């Protein structure tokens, strides 16, 4: 997959609904992991979101990928973004964060698993939601 193809796919993903974006992300992720900023990826390994806190610029699409042998789910703690479908092994979910703020989320299957997405204000400072 060429870099330009990957970029176009991600733009499409960012403008579609979250469920569709997740499906597309599953397809484009391998190419993207090598060619784009890895900081916009959250891994789910050993019942842990990695990194625990991810700081991004507005407009960044975050993709969670489950690499455990057990399904997980991603849900906002304050309903700030739509929850993922159940993610089986190697399934992904993507959401594009446009508004600056701090977004806490958890695994709705195993709620002791938590993580945070910080979307920086355009100027670079961090707003708290």
């Amino acid at each position: 997959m060429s870099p330009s193809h990957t970029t176009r796919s991600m733009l499409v993903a960012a403008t579609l609904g979250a469920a569709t974006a997740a499906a597309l992300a599953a397809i484009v992720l391998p190419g993207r992991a090598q060619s784009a900023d890895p900081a916009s990826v959250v891994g789910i390994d050993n019942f842990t979101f990695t990194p625990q806190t991810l700081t991004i610029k507005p407009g960044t699409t975050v993709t969670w990928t489950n690499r455990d042998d057990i399904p997980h789910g991603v849900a906002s703690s304050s309903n700030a973004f739509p929850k993922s479908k159940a993610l089986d092994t190697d399934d992904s979910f993507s959401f594009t964060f446009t508004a600056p703020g701090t977004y806490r989320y958890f695994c709705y299957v195993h709620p002791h698993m938590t993580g945070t997405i910080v979307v920086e204000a355009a100027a670079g400072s961090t707003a708290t939601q």
Partner: protein
Amino acid sequence: MSKSDHDGGVSRRQVLECMTWVGTGVLWTVAGGVPHSLGIIGEAAAAQEASGLTFLQLSDSHVGFDKPANPNALGTLEEAIAKVNALPNKPAFMIHTGDISHLSLQSQFDDADRIISQSRLDVHYVPGEHDFLDPEQKFYRDRYGRGTKGAGWYSFDANGVHFIGLVNVVNLKAGGLGDLGADQLEWLEADLKGRSASTPIVLFAHIPLWTVYADWGWGTEDAAQALSYLERFGSVTVLNGHIHQVMQKVEGNVTFHTARSTAFPQPAPGAAASPGPMKVPDEQLRSMLGIASVTFKQNEQRLAIIDAPLKS
């Protein structure tokens, strides 16, 4: 856990320490009020002879699971049911303490029903978190929830024992454990009101109703509230699944017990990086899967619980 823990018989304390055992099922005997584990299914036959009521506990079938820890979870469920069918005395019924399916697919529920129905026993289900993964969270309730309240809780009576099936796997909150919720607690309090304190109570739910290991979410946020309603009862037995290993604890009038999975073992609390499926050598797998049998004896103080591995 060292091997020496198993030497010279197994006390309740030692059972607690034997957390790496995961089972096929537990045979429960209700004897004069207190459920009692009888050990493994092979030993169950003797215990059944003098019993008033014997029922089986099946748990964590995870039908659809096909990862290295057990590439054929449907096959091991079939083996567990074959073991049930081979019991010399037919149990009165089964309870299933959740995670029937792995991903809440209709095909997985279909496969589970096809196998479990071969036991020709009535089965009283409660859901695990894996049974509520369909987007609308309706497949479990459509199939198993008839006559239940809320997300699927209910009670029934058998041989003078009051059974209560609870749901602690829905509306889970960020950072929390299993959760019963206010509506279910209110129903539970009302369900117990007016019952004689001498009525033996068997409470069953998927996630343990005592905190086994909070770091892995192995507990229920508001279980203490539920158990407070049971303080006046002389015999309370709490049967859970979820952790895919046998653990037992006795606290005052309450006996807590978790059953093995029929699908795959999980590590002892804190013994691995995560509670995920534990891959063991193929020849060990069936010793860590199982079912449980419980017998209630009218003239004894405890329910007898037998945890029976698929293969010892």
